[in-house]
């Protein structure tokens, strides 16, 4: 177990800069998820930590130990690969003990270690099979067992669930989370799935184009995204963006936008940040998550919320069972609202929506940064 620090880490391939000054630090026992679209550099970052690639600049530390030039096998880290990367010619038992064998661990200790890990992962009955005789989920467990048995300082997971079917993926996700609670180990986990990131992480690092966009707890990233990319990437369905304007509405700052010829004016909360004042009279991007935009509600429905109502025509409804996603058209853009099924109406009808002003974000339309 150990903390992990990345200090101004850069990586270039020739003239292409794939990672630009990444600064990250996690404490012992934290679960860090690196998330981003493909090509964002998250896997490269993981490989740098693993030692499969060398960084062009900057420092990587485990605890107080600088590991930039340490051979992967001496870093005391273990990795679980997307394709599981089990050794096809060895039994499950051999797969798990291979690393120990190379490190010169005695046979009796190896047997004990395998038994412990197998019990933990419930793969005792698979130990004498070859990887080709296992299902995807079983292979995944073996791959995790191979990492666990080494008892490393840090576990690295490279999109470990993306080869599993949807149902199994959810089960294994829970299992990984349980395992983390039980072992209290430090984990770095790469995924492109924002739901995995939200559910597993103690802290998330959102990346795009080799740049760290935001590094924070899942809830904070969800509620206060740094920029429009993070806002749109995290959360499903993703955040609605409406082109709007900040105005002074009888002494209160309000956001206003066009609703098919009609002006909607949504006054901001009293305790809004001071910085909003300088934006009065300017264009902004008004971001609101689907659950912040609901059927008509009043403040007493949910304490602490402040609702502002407006009418709009329903274009499409998408029932998901628990909620009905209602698509409306605001300022030429499709906007999704999350509506209770019994309050949903049919497409083409007018409906009154409530915007929860507690759950809004405002962005600068040119820099796309949060105001």
């Amino acid at each position, binding site marked *: 177990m150990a903390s992990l620090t990345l200090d101004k880490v850069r990586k270039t391939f020739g003239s292409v800069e794939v990672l630009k000054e990444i600064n990250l630090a996690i404490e012992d026992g934290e679960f860090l998820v690196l998330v981003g679209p493909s090509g964002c550099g998250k896997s490269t970052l993981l490989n740098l930590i693993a030692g499969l690639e060398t960084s062009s600049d900057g420092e990587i530390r485990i605890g107080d130990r600088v590991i930039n030039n340490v051979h*992967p096998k001496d870093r005391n880290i273990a990795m679980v690969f997307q*394709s599981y990367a089990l*050794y096809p010619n060895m039994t499950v038992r051999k797969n798990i003990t291979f690393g120990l064998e190379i490190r010169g661990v005695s046979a009796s200790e190896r047997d004990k270690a395998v038994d412990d890990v197998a019990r933990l992962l419930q793969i005792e009955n698979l130990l004498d099979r070859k990887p080709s005789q296992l299902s995807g989920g079983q292979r995944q467990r073996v791959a995790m067992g191979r990492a666990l048995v080494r008892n490393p300082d840090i576990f690295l997971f490279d999109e470990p669930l993306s080869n599993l079917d949807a149902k199994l993926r959810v089960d294994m996700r829970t299992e990984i989370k349980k395992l983390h609670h039980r072992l209290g180990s430090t984990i770095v986990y790469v995924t492109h799935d924002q739901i995995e990131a939200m559910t597993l992480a103690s802290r998330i690092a959102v990346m795009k184009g080799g740049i760290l966009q935001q590094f924070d707890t899942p809830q904070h990233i969800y509620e206060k995204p740094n920029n429009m990319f993070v806002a749109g990437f995290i959360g499903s369905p993703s955040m609605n963006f409406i082109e709007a304007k900040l105005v002074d509405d009888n002494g209160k700052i309000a956001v206003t936008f066009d609703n098919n010829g009609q002006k909607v004016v949504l006054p901001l909360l009293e305790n809004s940040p001071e910085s909003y004042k300088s934006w009065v009279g300017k264009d902004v991007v008004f971001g609101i998550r689907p659950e912040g935009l609901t059927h008509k509600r009043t403040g007493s429905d949910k304490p602490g919320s402040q609702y502002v109502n407006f009418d709009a025509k329903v274009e499409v409804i998408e029932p998901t069972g628990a909620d009905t996603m209602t698509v409306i058209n605001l300022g030429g853009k499709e906007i999704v609202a999350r509506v209770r099924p019994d309050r949903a109406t049919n497409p083409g009808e007018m409906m009154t929506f409530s915007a929860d002003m507690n759950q809004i974000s405002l962005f600068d339309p040119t820099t796309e940064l949060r105001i």
Partner: protein
Amino acid sequence: MGASSSTESNLMASLQRNLSKIVVAPSFAASLFFVYGFIIWTAWMAFSKSRMMPVYDWAGLRQYERLWQMERWHVAIENLLIFGGLFIVICLFLGCLLAVLLDQRIRAEGVLRTIFLYPMALSFIVTGTTWKWILNPGLGLEKMMHDLGWASFKFDWLVNSDFAIYTVVIAAVWQASGFIMAMFLAALRGVDQDIIRAAYMDGASLPRIYFGIIIPSIRPVFLSAIVVLAHLAVKSFDLVIALTGGGPGYSSDLPATFMYTMAFQRNQLGISAASAMMMLATVMAIIVPYLYSELRGGKKNG
């Protein structure tokens, strides 16, 4: 009018249906006759009293008895064991080694691959002739060393009856190992790179990764390579003819050159046919189990 056009269209339709069979039929008939027909004819010859000309008198196993009494046949068999064994082992080793080295994502891999693979594109006659010049003591390697001033250098395997067969091994290995390399390289490229990285993180050294994990996991390719090499070894004829001509004396005879000599120079058609049948049996012993396992494997997958 209507009737004739319908017969015509019927004809066209049946032609369409059977077109593939019609196209394949001549070559099917030809191979049936020239390959399998002559196999049967040869088998018959081996039981006949034929000498210079084929005769069809029944002689039982007489030709086989005579064959196995011949010193020269024993030399040919022994040579086949030496040649086949060394050829297969060295080709596998070199091919595998070259493939592993080429697999290290080196520069100019395409050029090197072509260089190693190119000998396979030559005919054995060309290979044999070239190596005959290189190994000729008065012409090639030995003379070059002498000219360079290394007067005591001696490399006369080609004209030494104890070593002539090894020169055949050298030339054959030169020709075939590149092809084996290509087979192994294709298999290595199919191995998931993450396996190598996982082993690397487990702390395994590169030789250990290859010999402990990668090569065992491409075992089926070894079987294919051995089958290819074994049948090349058993049927190799032109290389020996071009390189040593079976000599000095008959010291580098292989069963194939033995058979040729018996049939066309010694007027021993019956013995020749018997030796051909012995070779057929050898090849069948290798190929049939292989085909059996391949076809059964195919059924299992399908």
